[in-house]
Structures are given as structure tokens and as C-alpha cells.
């Protein structure tokens, strides 16, 4: 016991290895920033991709890391969207960044309250409960049209300049940069969360909740925590959508939105943070492509792509896509840490 009480130096190194930045990540974010210069005519769709990515990141936190399925994640998106719209419309909080945080916190509070409903039951119950919550909120928003504008949505929102400096322009350049910055900051936070002991315990819970509690992990408390955090993310995504389009509508709560979100995450893959981001890019580009090719049947093609993805399997596609980058990477870095082979024992 005393012989090894000093830290084995490799333990810390290996434990931190997972959290290290890898070059594809750097390339990803540089490319995202490069879009500001590369596509000056496409800011609107880029902005949509940015907040959709944030929204999908939120779902990934609960689905990919904690294993909570949800068909009603739009509840928080819509809630955050209306919160941001009302704050701006009534001049309660005019500065967009502060309003964004407030809207996120409002969605977070809703997430905390509803998390207790989601803790119970199996995946199927969770699907139904989350779906139900989103439908309920949509109808409430419809009913209290004096506050929400009903089916017309909140109109006449005027956005103040960001930090009092940068006004939203008609081309959407400022809006896109704003969304991208928010996405990046919240991504960094999510990255921090998933590589912490808390994040590791979420993976343990998703894999085997019974085992997790036998290690001493308070399963329900952790699930409530991540569900609440994810609600904040979704609320911020909704608020971004309101702030950049100057509109909040009942669509925010729509079932389609929750279902599309699931598609986005399935396309991109769960449980590695980039799935939601990559999924959002692919989903929006496919939607754009198919809706110009066949305006009436674009959903057919989205469906077809989804079926193909499931049939081929994302692991295999990932391997194909990463074949060349891996080959290049392995050529450049031959210096790998030697791994001690396990003792050879007859099986």
C-alpha cells in the first residue's frame, strides 16, 4: 500500500489524454471561422446551421452522454426563443448577450422542473413524457396569445446592438459571427463538462445505471443536473434563433423540430460532441440541396439518406471518411507511446 502511494506519473497523463485537442478539431473550428470570409452570400443558412448545431449539442449532452432519449427537446428551444423575444419586445433586457443568458436560464429552470418527470421509467416512457411536455407548452403558447402572439408569433422585435457595439445587419454577417461565438463558447464549456469526473460518471450511467450506483454514483441527481444543463443549451439555441430572425413563433415548440433534431444527431453521431455540429451542417446542406432540386419532395430524400446511413452503419462511413486523414496523420507521427503488452498467459 505504501509502495505506490506516490502518483504513478502515467496515471495523470493517460487520464488527461482524452481531453487533449486533436488536429481535426482545430481544422473544424478554423473552417467554421473561415466561413465568415468564404461565403459572404450565405450568412442566413450559416446562422441557421450554427444555432441548429448548438441545439443538437444540447441533445447530445443528454442522449449521447447520459442516455436520456427525448422527442420533446423543442420545449426548451421554444421556451428560450419566446423568452428572448419577450425580453427584447418589452425592452426588459435589451442587450442581446445578457438577454441570451437570461433566456437560457429561463429554459434551464423549466428543464430542472421537468427533469423529475423524465427520471422515471424506461426509454419509451421518456419519449412520451418529453413529447407531451413539448405539446403542452405549444398549446399553452397558443392559448395565451395575448402574451405570445398566438399563431402569428411575436412580431416587431427589434434587436439592440450586441454589447452596445455591433448592430445586426441585413446581410446577417454580425448575426452569424454572434451565433458562431456563442456556439464556440458553449462548446468549450460542454467539452470541459464531458471530460470532468461528472462527465465520466454520465457515461457510466448511460452504459449501466445499476453498476454506476454500485460505484457510489448518485444516478438520478447526475441525470437531473445534465438535463438541466442541456435545457440551458437548448434555450440559448432558441434565443439565438429569435434574435437573429427577430421572430418567435409556435414553430419553436413543434414536434417536427424535436424530430429533426434527432435526425441531425443520428446523422452526425452521438457521444463525441461533434456529432451534433457535423450533423447540423450535413442536415442543412442536404435540406438546401434537395429543396432546390425537388421543392416538394425534399423530405423524401432526407428520409432516404437516413435509411442509407442506418443500413451502412455510421462506424463504417466514419472509417471510410477518415481513411485518408488517418493515413496522412500516421505518416507524420510515428512516435507513439510504447504500450506494455499484457502478460502472455494461455487463454
Amino acid at each position, binding site marked *: 500500500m505504501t509502495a505506490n502511494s506516490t*502518483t504513478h506519473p502515467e496515471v495523470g497523463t493517460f*487520464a488527461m489524454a*482524452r481531453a487533449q485537442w486533436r488536429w481535426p478539431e482545430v481544422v473544424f473550428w478554423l473552417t467554421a471561422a473561415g466561413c465568415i470570409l468564404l461565403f459572404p452570400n450565405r450568412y442566413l443558412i450559416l446562422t441557421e446551421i450554427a444555432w441548429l448545431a448548438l441545439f443538437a449539442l444540447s441533445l447530445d449532452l443528454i442522449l449521447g452522454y447520459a442516455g436520456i432519449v427525448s422527442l420533446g427537446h423543442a420545449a426548451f428551444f421554444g421556451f428560450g426563443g419566446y423568452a428572448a423575444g419577450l425580453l427584447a419586445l418589452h425592452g426588459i433586457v435589451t442587450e442581446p448577450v445578457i438577454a441570451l443568458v437570461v433566456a437560457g436560464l429561463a429554459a434551464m429552470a423549466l428543464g430542472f422542473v421537468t427533469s423529475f418527470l423524465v427520471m422515471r421509467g424506461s426509454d419509451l416512457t421518456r419519449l412520451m413524457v418529453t413529447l407531451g411536455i413539448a405539446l403542452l407548452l405549444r398549446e399553452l403558447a397558443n392559448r395565451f396569445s395575448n402574451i405570445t402572439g398566438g399563431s402569428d408569433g411575436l412580431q416587431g422585435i427589434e434587436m439592440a446592438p450586441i454589447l452596445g457595439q455591433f448592430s445586426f445587419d441585413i446581410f446577417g454577417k454580425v448575426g452569424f459571427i454572434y451565433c458562431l461565438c456563442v456556439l464556440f463558447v458553449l462548446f468549450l464549456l460542454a467539452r470541459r463538462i464531458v471530460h470532468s469526473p461528472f462527465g465520466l460518471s454520465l457515461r*457510466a450511467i448511460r452504459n449501466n445505471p445499476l453498476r454506476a450506483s*454500485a*460505484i457510489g454514483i*448518485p*444516478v438520478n441527481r447526475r441525470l437531473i443536473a445534465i438535463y438541466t444543463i442541456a435545457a440551458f443549451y437548448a434555450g440559448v439555441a432558441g434565443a439565438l434563433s429569435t434574435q437573429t430572425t427577430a421572430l418567435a413563433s409556435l414553430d419553436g415548440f413543434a414536434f417536427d423540430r424535436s424530430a429533426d433534431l434527432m435526425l441531425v444527431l443520428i446523422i452526425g453521431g452521438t457521444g463525441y460532441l461533434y456529432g451534433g455540429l457535423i450533423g447540423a451542417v450535413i442536415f442543412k446542406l442536404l435540406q438546401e440541396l434537395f429543396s432546390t432540386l425537388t421543392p416538394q419532395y425534399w423530405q423524401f430524400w432526407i428520409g432516404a439518406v437516413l435509411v442509407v446511413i442506418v443500413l451502412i452503419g455510421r462506424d463504417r462511413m466514419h472509417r471510410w471518411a477518415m481513411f485518408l486523414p488517418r493515413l496522412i496523420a500516421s505518416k507524420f507521427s510515428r512516435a507513439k507511446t510504447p504500450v506494455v503488452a499484457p502478460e502472455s*498467459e494461455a487463454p
Partner: protein
Amino acid sequence: MTIALETVNLEKSFGGLRVTRDLSLKIEAGARHALIGPNGAGKTTVINLLTGVLKPNSGRILLEGNDITGLPVHKRVLRGLSRTFQINQLYPDMTPLETVGLAASEHLGHGSDWWRRMGTRSDVNDAIAENLARFHLLDVMNEPTATLPYGKQRLLEIAVAIATKPRVLLLDEPAAGVPESERHDILSAVASLPRDVTVLLIEHDMDLVFSFADRISVLVAGAMLVEGPPDEVARDPRVKAVYLGEGADV
């Protein structure tokens, strides 16, 4: 002598089936106690009752004199009651480092830390290194658990439980399914568990039971049949009857 773990008139029924009958069990601090019994005797149910997976219909469970009957699973672990699993319940895609790190983080109170990265706390790292070294897992600490030889996985199972720093450890068939060549490693790991940890061994394998235990309880049909030191239990005609199937009268 102090009692580490005690059950008082524990009862559990599933529908009309009484699977645990009036079970009163006392395990002394520091003991190497074995719980044996034929298939279907209700050993697994006892573990589930002790760890809190199942709630008893009546009766109480005391850990070092404190009533833990109403506590959920994870709180019992934090109080010092841990278990190993008979069938592999490890995380296949996590490394031994991460698996032991989870348990150590929770034990040291850092489990809900969502800001600092794994590997940046020296107390957790020390605990990980100590446990991996004790169970000869340092050389494979960065390999996914699913790729480890089965014997190593069984060792990891014990290492995780020990990383929660238990006062009482429930060992559920630690050597089950381990190939003969790796069996010795498990037995020596079990034999060299810290003496201040009280161990309740649930086992089928009589060689292991009689080499390890200083006290044996025999469970039959959910009720305690015999309890005593190994030689006494081995001589008991009722135990022989149960195990050899002669005139099963209980």
C-alpha cells in the same frame, strides 16, 4: 467484538414466493465470512437486499450499527458497503484507469465536479495508481476493458470495489468463469484483501470457500440452515444432506 454488517429478521417475497425467510445474519468486523447454498437458495436476493437494489418486506439491515435499510444503493456505497458482480458488469469501452477513476472520484467527493478534467487531481490519481498496482493492472490501465483477458477483468471488478474504500465488501463469486490458468491470480488477490475490510463471500466453489472463510453460513430455500466455523459446517449432516441431495428435508 464489533459487528460490521447485520441483518435482523429480513424477509423478502416475490408474489407468494418467500425468497428470504427471517434471515438474521451477523458478520464480525474483519471477518472472512462465506455465504453458501445450493442453486436457488436465494443468495443473489440477499446481495440485492444488502446493497439496496431490492427493498425487504420487513426486517432491518445494519452497517456498523447504523440502520441502512432505507438507503439507496449509492448512499450505502458511500457509507462503506461495496460489492463485486458475478457476471461481468464492467464498462467495456472504458479503460481500467477510467473505471477505477470513477470509483475513486466518487469516494473522494469529486464525482460532481464538472469543471476540472480527469487526471488533474493528485488525490484521485494516487488512489487510481494504488488500486491498479495492488491488482496488477498498471500494465493494462490504458486498454479498453473489453480487450482484457477475463482474469484481468475479474481483478478489475475487485479493484473498482476496493477503490470505493469499503468497510464491508460483498464478493459475488469472484472466480466464476475464470480459466484455470488465471485462477491463481484471483485467489491470491482475494486472499490479500486488506484485513480491515470485512468480506462476505458468496460462492459456489467449495475449495475457495474452505480455503478463504473463517466462518460459513449455509442458506437453503431463503432461510439460514447452519452457521459456524468451516470444520463444523463441513461435518454437519444437514449440510451434507443438502449438498449431496440425500433426504432433503428442509
